[in-house]
C-alpha cells in the first residue's frame, strides 16, 4: 500500500509543522486567504476547523472563532467549510499544497449523513479528518464510508497502554498526541512527560506522531519538534487569523523554528 498524502507530509526528513485555521472566521473569504497564507508560510499540513456550537475540546480562542463564524449571515457549518476547503485545494497559491485535514465534531457529520459528508470531503480534496469526540470505538460507522480519507485519532496523556494500542491501530495518516489534559489553547509551559508519551506511542506504530494542544510560540514549537514528527499549532494561529499577512509571518516563524 502506498503511503498516504498525509503520512508523506511528515516524511520530509525533518519535523513537520501543522497549523490549524477556523473555516469561516471571520468570514468565508478571509479564512480562504488565511489558508493560502499558511501554505505560503510553510505549513506542511493544514487542519481546517469546522465551526460548531458545542466545541467541547476547544479553548476560548477557537470557541470564540467558531462562534463568530457561525453567527455570520446565513450561518456557517460543515458544508460551507468544505466549500472553503475545495476553493483552497483548487487554488492553494503555492506549488506544492499542504494536505488538508478537516477537524470537525461528530454531530455535524451525522447531521449531513456520514456517507454524504465523506463524499463531500473527498470532492473538496481533503486528505483526512479529525473528530475529537469520536474515539475509535465509536468510529466504526464512519470508517465504513470514509475510504480515501485518513481518519486521525488522538492519544491523550491519560491514555493507558491498552488505549494507546487501540488508538494507534485505528489511526490513519498520523497520530495526534494531545500534550496536556484540558482543552485546546496556549500554555506557558509544555507538559512534563511529553517525550515519554511520544515514546510510548512510537512503540505501537510506525505512523508519524504529531503533538498538539498548548503549543503557542516558536520556542515551544522547537522544543516539541525535538521529540516528535510534527508540531500542531492552533489557537496561536487562529488568534492572528483576521490578518492573512500576520498568519503568513507567524507560520514562517514557526516553520523556521520547527526546522532549525
Amino acid at each position: 500500500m502506498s503511503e498516504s498524502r498525509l503520512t508523506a507530509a511528515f516524511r520530509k526528513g525533518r519535523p513537520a509543522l501543522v497549523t490549524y485555521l477556523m473555516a469561516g472566521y471571520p468570514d468565508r473569504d478571509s479564512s480562504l486567504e488565511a489558508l493560502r497564507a499558511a501554505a505560503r508560510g510553510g505549513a506542511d499540513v493544514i487542519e481546517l476547523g469546522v465551526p460548531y456550537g458545542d466545541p467541547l475540546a476547544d479553548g476560548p480562542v477557537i470557541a470564540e472563532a467558531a462562534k463568530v463564524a457561525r453567527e455570520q449571515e446565513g450561518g456557517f457549518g460543515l458544508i460551507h467549510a468544505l466549500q472553503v476547503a475545495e476553493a483552497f485545494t483548487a487554488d492553494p497559491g503555492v506549488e506544492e499544497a499542504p494536505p488538508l485535514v478537516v477537524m470537525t465534531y461528530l454531530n455535524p457529520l451525522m447531521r449531513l449523513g456520514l456517507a454524504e459528508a465523506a463524499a463531500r470531503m473527498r470532492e473538496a480534496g481533503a486528505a483526512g479528518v479529525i473528530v475529537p469526540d469520536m474515539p475509535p470505538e465509536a468510529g466504526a460507522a464512519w470508517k465504513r464510508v470514509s475510504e480515501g480519507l485518513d481518519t486521525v485519532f488522538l492519544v491523550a496523556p491519560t491514555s493507558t497502554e491498552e488505549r494507546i494500542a487501540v488508538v494507534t491501530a485505528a489511526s490513519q495518516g498520523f497520530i495526534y498526541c494531545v500534550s496536556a489534559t484540558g482543552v485546546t489553547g496556549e500554555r506557558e509551559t509544555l507538559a512534563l512527560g511529553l517525550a515519554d508519551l511520544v515514546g510510548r506511542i512510537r512503540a505501537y506504530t510506525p505512523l508519524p506522531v504529531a503533538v498538539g494542544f498548548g503549543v503557542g510560540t516558536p520556542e515551544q514549537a522547537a522544543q516539541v519538534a525535538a521529540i516528535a514528527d510534527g508540531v500542531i499549532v492552533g489557537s496561536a494561529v487562529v488568534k492572528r487569523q483576521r490578518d492573512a499577512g500576520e498568519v503568513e509571518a507567524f507560520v514562517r516563524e514557526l516553520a523556521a523554528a520547527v526546522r532549525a
Partner: protein
Amino acid sequence: MTEVFLPSAEMAYSTPDAQGFYGPYGGTFVPETVVPALGELAVAYEEAIADAAFLEEFAYLLHDYVGRPTPLYRADRLADAHRLRAVYLKREDLNHTGAHKINNTIGQCLLARRMGKTRVIAETGAGQHGVATATTAALMGLECAVFMGTEDIRRQALNVYKMRLLGAEVVPVSDGTGTLADAVTAALRHWVERVEDTFYVIGSAVGPHPYPRMVRDFQSIIGSEIIAQLEEKALPPVDAVVACVGGGSNAIGTFYPFLRDVPVEERPLLVGAEAAGLGLETDKHGAALSKGSPGVLHGFYSYLLQDEAGNPLEAYSISAGLDYPGVGPEHSYLKDEGLVRYESVTDIEALEAFALLTRTEGIIPAIESSHALALLPRLAAELGEDATVVVTVSGRGDKDMDIVREAGLGE
C-alpha cells in the same frame, strides 16, 4: 434492593448493552482524554453494585439521611377536580433538599469516595442538583465545585447562596446562553482537565456511558417504592404512571422498575411530560423527543434539538430543570420502541397544574413536576372516571416562588 442494580438476562427489558447502548442511543462520544476515566468508572460501578456493603450504605443513607421511603399519597381533592377515581402522588418533594436529585448524588458520591476521589464537580440548571451535590459533598467531606450558567445564577440566587453555605464553590459559566447546556459543557471541559482527582457527578440520566445507566439505577428507588407501596395498599393495578422529562432522571427512575418487573400486559400506561414552553409551533420549547432528531451532544447519541448544520439549539421552558436541548438516551429508545408515551406541556398548562395542586392539596410542587401534573386532565379524558393515575412529584416548588409570582399566580 440488590435486584435493582443487577438485572438478570431473563428479564424481558434489559438495557443498556455493555457499551452503553439503548438500541441505537447512548454510547460514548467524548474526547480521548476522558475515555480512560469513563472506562474506569464503568468498572468501579460494576464492582460497587456487586458489593453488599456499598448497597447497604446507599440504602442506609437514603433511609436515614434522605428520609426515604417517600409517601405515595392519595390526593382525593385533586382526583375529584379531574374526575378521576384516584390520583397517587409519589412525594419526591419530601426528600431532604426537596427533590429526587439527592437519590443520585448519594449514589455517585459514595462511588467517588470508593474510587478514592477527593473532589466532585457537578453542573446545575435550577440549582437542585447543585444543592444536592453540595449537600452530599458536605456529608461525605468531599471538595465540591458546581458549574452554573450566569443566567441561571441570576434566576436561582437562593440556591446559589445555599450551595456556598454548604461549602461548595459555584463556578459561573457565561458561555452560550448561560444556562444548563453550557454548564454541562463547562463541567465536562473541566473534568477533561482534572480527571485524575475529580469525579463528575452528572445530575440527569444523560452523558456518556455509564452515566445514564448509573443515574437510572440510583433513581429507580422511586419506581421500586411505587410498586411496593401499591402492593402494600393492596390496590388494583393503576392505569397510568406519569413523570416529567428534562434530561429524564426522575422519569426513568419512575418507569424503569415498571418496565423491568411488570409484564407488558399488566403494565400501566407510562407517560413522560416534556416542556412545550411557549408551544411546539414556536422555537421556544424543550421538547427534544417530540420535536428533535437524533444526534450527539454531551457525549451521547439521543433525540436532540438541533439546527440544519447539527449545532445544538437553545431549549426554553419556564422551568430551569426542563430547558435542556437533549434527553436521556433510554427515553429515546423507549419512545422508538413505543414502551413509553411522551407528550408535551406548555408553560401555561404547567402553571395551571401548579395552582390546582397548591389549592386542592396544599402541596406546592416544582414547576418541573407541574408538567407531569398537567397531563391529568388529558388522561382523565382518555381513560375515563374509573381510572387511577400515579404522578411523580419530583420536587417542591419553593425555588419557583419568584417565577410563579412573575406569572401572576395568587394575585
